[in-house]
């Protein structure tokens, strides 16, 4: 079974507390990401970006949320049979969850390596598929969790705090 966890140093207690309690969110958004539809992919990220902007989240954090969410949406469209993006907004952070319909990541550590990609020609022609998506999600997240195995659906979720410095 493939499991990947990253938690920004210093946030372990808060992140672990959140994942064990899984409290009710203040606000939630959900959108669909169809397979290989690169125009639909991005709509969920745009929606959440606009909502956070209205809520007064600072531009640096807004950019991190938008970039991480868009990378994940492109990944779902490029590599899976389609999936769902769910955003849960809390006072201090946003939790975004991507669930797809498979076929899973064979080796998560390899997929996390910058430059490694299994993207097809169509994805590369659009200018994606450089093997930078997952590392960029990690760079912009305060916590990242991936659960995947070959032949099964993938779960990718991340947290971004509204008050963090980076």
């Amino acid at each position, binding site marked *: 079974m493939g499991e990947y966890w990253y938690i920004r140093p210093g946030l372990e207690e808060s992140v672990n507390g959140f994942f064990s309690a899984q409290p009710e969110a203040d606000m939630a958004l959900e959108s669909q990401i169809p397979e290989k539809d*690169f*125009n639909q992919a*991005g709509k969920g*990220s*745009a929606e959440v*970006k606009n909502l956070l902007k209205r809520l007064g989240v600072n*531009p640096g954090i*807004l*950019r991190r949320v*938008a*970039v991480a*969410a*868009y*990378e994940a949406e492109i990944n779902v469209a490029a590599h899976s049979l389609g999936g769902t993006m769910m955003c849960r907004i809390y006072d201090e952070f946003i939790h975004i969850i991507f669930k797809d319909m498979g076929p899973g990541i064979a080796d998560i550590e390899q997929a996390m390596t910058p430059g490694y990609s299994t993207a097809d020609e169509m994805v590369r022609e*659009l*200018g*994606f*598929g*450089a*093997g*930078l*998506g997952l*590392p*960029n999600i990690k*760079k912009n997240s305060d916590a990242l969790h991936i659960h995947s195995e070959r032949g099964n659906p993938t779960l990718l979720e991340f947290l971004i705090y509204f008050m963090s410095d980076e």
Partner: protein
Amino acid sequence: MITLHEYLMEIEGTNHTPGLDPRGIILKGGYVCDMLSDVMGSAREGLAWITIMKHLNTIAVASMTGVPAIILAKGNVPEQAVIDKASEEGVCICSSDLDTFSLAGILYTLLQK
């Protein structure tokens, strides 16, 4: 820092998004790349993105990263659907006949003054 308007004058650029005023867009740098994945990791507010990529995802990448202006090199002109999307997202999309090397060089020179 310069305005996008000053830059467009130097590169004989055309703004395709008339609803956005290049005089009000401040540039403090640029980013030159056709690989959207790389732009996602490095582009940010205040940069002009010089590229030949002109499809809808180009606009989405600019919007997500906060890039205020896209400069299409070598006379590339986007389709109307792309222009509409750019206007909607507040991303100024422009074209110039110059190649990316010249476009980057001119921007760099202007910013050094």
